[in-house]
């Protein structure tokens, strides 16, 4: 079995409580960071560790923090992205449920590093029970003096609040998240300006995913070189892969970055469910282009997936079996993105609605000749033509399914046109 770093305490009873967490050597990283390190040293260590964002885009966390101006006459904010809406993704739920104090430690260290005194954890509205657990953990941390004024006598102050969303996939996009936190519709903003300079309440803001921040205490305690050894030199650490769909053992698997996709499915997740045959895999959440059964000999790291013309995204692996119709998969993808488009950009709003209508017609047995070409044409016109990545997130899986499974999709139209 691979070494567990982030998930080490998941099986320990009551590890979500501060007493057990401290008993298991928790809150040692903030002692080291706040008492022995300067913010600059922390930034250098996190940069050197090549910690890439676990939310989907894979942007190096240290570089992101480095973009925030050091001296500025406004407050700075940390927004913790716990929206976890990418279909297939459920890893952050585990971290927040089983190890909320590891996350809080990461929040404290990152805030100290960037000079932030207020952090908001933006959690998807459906995770109400988990939001309550986070609030309990925050209250425990205040009581021990790890949050609030003059943390550990360092002179550093930090307040952390939980903010619940209300059911909108788009709010996982960082600028939509900011709009939502400000009490508005989740319409993404035009970038630049980037949130590092103009973010929440027009102030410099860092936005990091839960799993990204949970890695920070490990880097502080063990160093950048150690972290890179646990993954790849350019892409350090482990990933908590979430495997769902037609596998024998769906669940989370924390493994070194770069673990082959094939091994995750056939060794760790126990292979296919009830002797089913593999047909396709979505390797990084629904937005990731689909891989066929012949394409799963790929290492699960950002660069290898890009080479394979897909993406690592949130590390959410959805396994599709031979008995599943790819037309049905396409229908569900089209349904999701047309439902979740915020409506701000015309190509995304109209394009996704049009694709959904066409795919629904095909699914109802009324497909027409030319439908597939039309879907490809419309999806190609969404790609790269929207303010935020939702347009691409829709177009990429739709294009890959129509191109890689064209013959099967055509068979649903034959004799109709």
């Amino acid at each position: 079995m691979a070494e567990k770093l982030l998930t080490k305490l998941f099986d320990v009873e009551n590890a979500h409580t501060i007493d057990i967490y401290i008993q298991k050597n928790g809150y040692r990283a903030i002692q080291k960071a706040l008492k022995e390190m300067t913010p600059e040293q922390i930034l250098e260590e996190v940069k050197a560790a090549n910690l890439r964002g676990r939310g989907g885009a894979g942007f190096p966390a240290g570089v992101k923090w480095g973009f925030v101006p050091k001296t500025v006459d406004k407050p700075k904010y940390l927004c913790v992205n716990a929206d976890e809406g990418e279909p297939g993704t459920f890893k952050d739920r585990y971290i927040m449920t089983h190890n909320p104090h590891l996350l809080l430690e990461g929040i404290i260290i990152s805030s100290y590093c960037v000079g932030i005194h207020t952090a908001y954890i933006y959690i998807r509205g459906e995770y109400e029970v988990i939001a309550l657990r986070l609030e309990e953990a925050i209250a425990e941390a205040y009581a021990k003096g790890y949050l609030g004024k003059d943390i550990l006598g360092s002179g550093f102050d930090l307040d952390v609040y939980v903010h619940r969303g209300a059911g909108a996939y788009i709010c996982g996009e960082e600028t939509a998240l900011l709009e939502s936190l400000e009490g508005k519709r989740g319409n993404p903003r035009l970038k630049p300006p980037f949130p590092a300079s103009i973010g929440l309440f027009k102030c410099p803001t860092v936005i990091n995913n839960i799993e990204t921040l949970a890695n920070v205490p490990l880097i502080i305690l063990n160093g950048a070189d150690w972290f890179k050894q646990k993954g790849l030199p350019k892409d350090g650490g482990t990933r908590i892969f979430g495997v769902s769909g037609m596998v024998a053992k769906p669940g989370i698997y924390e493994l070194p970055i770069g673990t082959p996709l094939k091994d995750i499915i056939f060794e760790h997740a126990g292979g296919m469910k009830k002797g089913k045959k593999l047909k396709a895999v979505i390797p990084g959440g629904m937005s990731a282009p689909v891989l066929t059964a012949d394409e799963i000999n790929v290492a699960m790291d950002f660069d290898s997936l890009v080479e394979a013309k897909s993406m690592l995204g949130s590390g959410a692996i959805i396994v599709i079996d031979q008995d599943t119709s790819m037309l049905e998969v396409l229908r569900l993808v089209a349904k999701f993105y047309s439902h979740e488009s915020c409506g701000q950009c015309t190509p995304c709003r109209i394009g996704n609605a049009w694709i959904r209508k066409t795919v629904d017609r095909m699914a109802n047995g009324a497909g027409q000749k030319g439908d597939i070409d039309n879907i490809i044409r419309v999806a190609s016109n969404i790609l790269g033509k929207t303010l935020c990545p939702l347009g691409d997130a829709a177009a990429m899986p739709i294009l890959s399914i129509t191109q890689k499974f064209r013959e099967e999709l055509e068979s649903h139209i034959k004799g109709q046109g």
Partner: protein
Amino acid sequence: MSPEFSDQTKQKIAEVIARYPQKKAALLPVLHLVQQEIGHISAAEEIQLAGLLELKPIQVREVVTFYTMYNRQPVGKYHIQVCSNLSCSLLGAQSLIDYLKDKLGIDLGETTSDKKFTLTTVECLGACEHAPCMMVNFDYYGKLSKKTIDEILDHLE
């Protein structure tokens, strides 16, 4: 503040507002608190909250209609939301949705005549390893079958 909210809700609303440098930022969490107490958000609540958070009523309406979790109509005592996204569908979500429609005698988006159950579908709940799954109010239920659905519903009073 209007007298129609309970003291507890009023106190929570005040606490939430204090977390932000701008009052309006409290809108989403305050809407959750109001919905928890009243069950849904009607025009009256929109106007009331607009006054409280220094917004125009239309700014509250924009938010209420944008986010799927705010109910603009009353829902049943138990709001059943079945995930209809990919991982759950691969494992039979559609047949469970059909089963629930038959069992409750309602279509999607409807409420039983005794106001006990409302049935809707929902996009990915973030519990794909337990597919197929559903949420009843804020409780998650996974690895569902017709049998487990019967058991869950039987235990709801």
